[in-house]
């Protein structure tokens, strides 16, 4: 059960119970994300100002992993440029998909999600918010993104 407690760390359970930035932002770029495997839906709001993410928030239903990931992501994104956000996406993605325990970039609070890599069926849960964010900062498209 040690892998399990690695996955469901207290921090993750806390973010699941009381997600940060769990709200809508009026007038912000809005992007839908959908994971057809589990039916999870997420709406991400990104407000850019002067090339920087001024505010970011999300709404939707999902499992603990996807909610905690979205919650932690929104905390981490504030003040970042679109390019920095994309770079963070790449680092995060590498962290949850790498098949060895070797050093990955230190992602601070986001590293509580590293345990996901032991659970291949849950990687999509952890990455849903991130794929949605990537779509939101890439363009103004409103086509829903999917992790399938």
């Amino acid at each position, binding site marked *: *059960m040690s892998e399990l407690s690695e996955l469901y760390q207290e921090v993750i359970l806390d973010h699941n119970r009381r997600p940060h930035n769990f709200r809508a932002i009026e007038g912000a770029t809005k992007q839908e994300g959908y994971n057809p495997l*589990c039916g*999870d839906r997420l709406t991400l709001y990104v407000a850019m100002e002067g090339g920087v993410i001024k505010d970011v928030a999300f709404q939707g*239903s999902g499992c603990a992993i996807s909610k905690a990931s979205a919650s932690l992501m929104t905390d981490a994104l504030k003040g970042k440029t679109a390019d920095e956000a994309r770079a963070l996406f790449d680092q995060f993605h590498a962290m949850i998909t790498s098949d060895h325990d070797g050093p990955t970039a230190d992602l601070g609070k986001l590293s509580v999600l590293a345990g996901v890599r032991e659970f291949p069926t*849950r990687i999509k849960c952890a990455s849903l918010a991130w794929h949605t964010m990537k779509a939101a900062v890439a363009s103004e498209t409103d086509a829903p993104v999917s992790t399938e």
Partner: protein
Amino acid sequence: MAIGTSSVQAAFDVAKIRADFPILAERVHGQPLVYLDSANTSQKPESVLKAMDDYYRHANANIHRATHLLSERATALYEGSRAKAAAFLNAPDKRTIVFTKGTTDGINLVAQSYGRSTLKPGDEILLTWLEHHSNIVPWQLVAEQTGAVIKVVPINDAGELDQGEFAALLSPRTKIVAMGHVSNALGTINPVADMIARAHAVGAVVLVDGAQAAPHLVIDVQALDCDFYVLSSHKMFGPTGTGVLYGRASLLEAMPPYQGGGDMIASVTFERTLYNQVPYKFEAGTPNMAGVVGLGAAIDYLAGIDREAALAHEDAVLEYATAQVRQIPGARIVGEARHKTGVLSFVLDGVHPHDAGTILDQQGVAVRTGQHCAQPVMDRFGIAATIRASLGIYNTREDIDALVRGLHKVRELFV
């Protein structure tokens, strides 16, 4: 969900059944496997594995196409399975049995061959709210191609079809009724015989999706009087990649081919091709021969057990599971039809099904979590997903006890 009497249960030796399924001895994450995902796909008995292995070792050759002994053996085994499938469904004639890749393939065949050649703009295809996506999307495709319109029979809060609405939706415009025999998401057994009679009264043709019925119920297509019945081998203890379409002979004969190729023809010239007779007209190309042989062995396996006793056993386990899960604080069962089989779908307050699935898996308990390819059912109940424990003939009360222990662990972590 009639409870079997103790004498019936005594006739069914579940320990003996379990010994027939080698995978049940597997350990997962260091725990004994508790397999509660048979509605997704069932496990296979030794006899099925052996039949397929024997086929490749002693009979493999292309069927219907060669004069040598192996081809004769392969053809005899393949056609032998057709006779077994006919008996399994009590079909009047083995010509009415078409081998397919599975339920999805069978429904697409009927939609594209029968549906596409007969439907006119404004004709109605009547589905139900309980359908698996594979009994929805093929009809949407053919509706788009022909201008036909799709109507849907609603369900009540227990997950039963609304029979009043069904009667109201039937009209002379209704050309096809396509409905599941047993719901994969909720386990509801639909009163198909009665619904078929009512559909026939308005002149509609009826397809029954028997994917979830075949592993549990004794099926008699003549008593049901259905026009098409489809199933998947892999849900009824046979291998993947094969299935059965039963079709009324007169309909099959009038239907155009679904796919073109070898075996489905009588003669080919570039000017004109004559199609083979049924069922071969619908079996283009080299089929999944080993799979069909395995399906035959699965049918033999089921024929060798007391089906009524097996169902009574499963019903007793389902009843036990329902009572046990209901006692877990915050658990809510989704789908409480009076007639159910094989499936217990539920949600736990404050826990997403996906998280529960991972935690259960770590304890060796395999369930399915999600929308079960039945998004309309989930939408109807206003939920994104459920935890689904589904049963096969090999499951026991001990399996349910392991599930319940696992669910308590889930609650410890989350609530």
